[in-house]
């Protein structure tokens, strides 16, 4: 394949890459929101909140994402009829929510007990301590594992091909079967994934470094 043909094919991947980015972005957004909610439920002191959170986390982590996606797209058909892309976003969001909840929980629990006590002894309420003292520090600690999770989410978005979302993997496979250039088309998809994951890595590293200014043990 000469370079001009390669470029020609390459350009057809751009809309698919855009779709990959979109489902990843919105999936992560839903995942972070769910993650915060379930992390706070999980560490609360009432069983009424911890039990549902534990249940959610163990069900999601104990079953494959592909199955969750198929369940949402095909399985719920009689209850709600969701389009391909919303199905993919919801599945990715719910799936990542469980992992992100565990990331936040670990980060919150890693903050030294003395921090809470110092806040409490100033007369702050539990809520104030959480919002002003614990969460800002926990968020900082969560950045490296979160970045990692975002990269996993980006790659997992390729599973959306199973319900016919025109994202990178499906596009490359369709082209490949039309022109018998399997190796070439998969390689182009791989290049796109690599570019996007590299950018994500770069961004999280930069954020981490920026927030490090004040971050030492006290």
């Amino acid at each position, binding site marked *: 394949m000469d370079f001009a043909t390669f470029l020609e094919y390459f350009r057809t991947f751009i809309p698919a890459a855009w779709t990959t980015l979109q489902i990843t972005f919105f999936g992560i957004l839903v995942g972070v929101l769910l993650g915060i909610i379930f992390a706070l439920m999980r560490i609360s002191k009432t069983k009424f909140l911890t039990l549902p959170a534990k249940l959610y986390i163990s069900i999601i982590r104990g079953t494959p994402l592909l199955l969750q996606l198929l369940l949402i797209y095909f399985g719920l058909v009689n209850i709600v009829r969701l389009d391909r892309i919303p199905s993919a976003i919801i599945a990715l969001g719910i799936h990542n929510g469980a992992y992100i909840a565990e990331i936040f929980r670990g980060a919150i629990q890693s903050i030294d007990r*003395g921090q809470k006590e110092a*806040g409490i002894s100033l*007369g702050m309420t539990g809520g104030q301590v959480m919002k002003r003292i614990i969460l800002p520090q926990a968020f900082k600690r969560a950045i490296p594992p979160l970045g990692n999770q975002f990269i996993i989410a980006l790659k997992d978005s390729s599973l959306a091909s199973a319900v016919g979302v025109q994202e990178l993997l499906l596009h490359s496979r369709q082209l490949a079967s039309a022109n018998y250039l399997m190796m070439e088309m998969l390689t182009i998809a791989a290049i796109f994934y690599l570019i996007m994951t590299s950018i994500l890595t770069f961004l999280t590293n930069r954020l981490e470094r920026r927030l490090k200014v004040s971050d030492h043990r006290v």
Partner: protein
Amino acid sequence: MDHMIKIKSLSKSYGKLKVLKNIDLDVSPSEVVVIIGASGSGKSTLLRCINFLEKPQKGTITIDGKEVNHKTKNLHLIRREVGMVFQHFNLFPHMTVMNNVIEGLTQVKKVPHAEAIEQGKAMLEKVGMLDKADVYPAMISGGQKQRVAIARALAMNPQIMLFDEPTSALDPELVGEVLQVMKSLAEEGMTMVVVTHEMGFAREVADRVIYMDEGQIVEQGSFEQVFDNPQNDRTKAFLSHII
């Protein structure tokens, strides 16, 4: 004279372990009480009960006339009256020195920001840390951290200050600056309960020394009474050990 702190038959246990056994203790306004005792004797637990960080199973604690027991709600309102300084400083690492000091003022007392800064400056001045107002805790020494922690507690204008081994995590050459701040606080008439093994401080500043053993107060009196003429054999053994 009314007592600033009045503790009546206070008992605290963790599971089966009885850490405080029926403690009675009254502290007068402006009194400085130093608590000594072996590791595990319950000194920290007693302080933490006075600040309601721990809930005792039994007994009452009265702070400036307000009685607190295990059923009292809104503990955070009473905690404002009691400042606490910890062994490991527990400064907030994500906030500058100044923001550490004004956190309680702005969040708890809802003092407007500009006014809080003014008060914060006064507190930092008092502990000799005004020049470090804008740096993060990670950039200052242990002694400086502890002085900032004292300023943070003082900013709430508490009636009582509790110190739990405030100098024992410090390098020896940094101990003096912290004790100096505590000493001037005592001279201003602050009511203080201090757990420490700094005997020079106890001799100079303490109005009363209390020796705790296995969750009980077994000896108390002036520094001279406790050190030069201890009545209890355990006190004698402990003192021979630390001096």
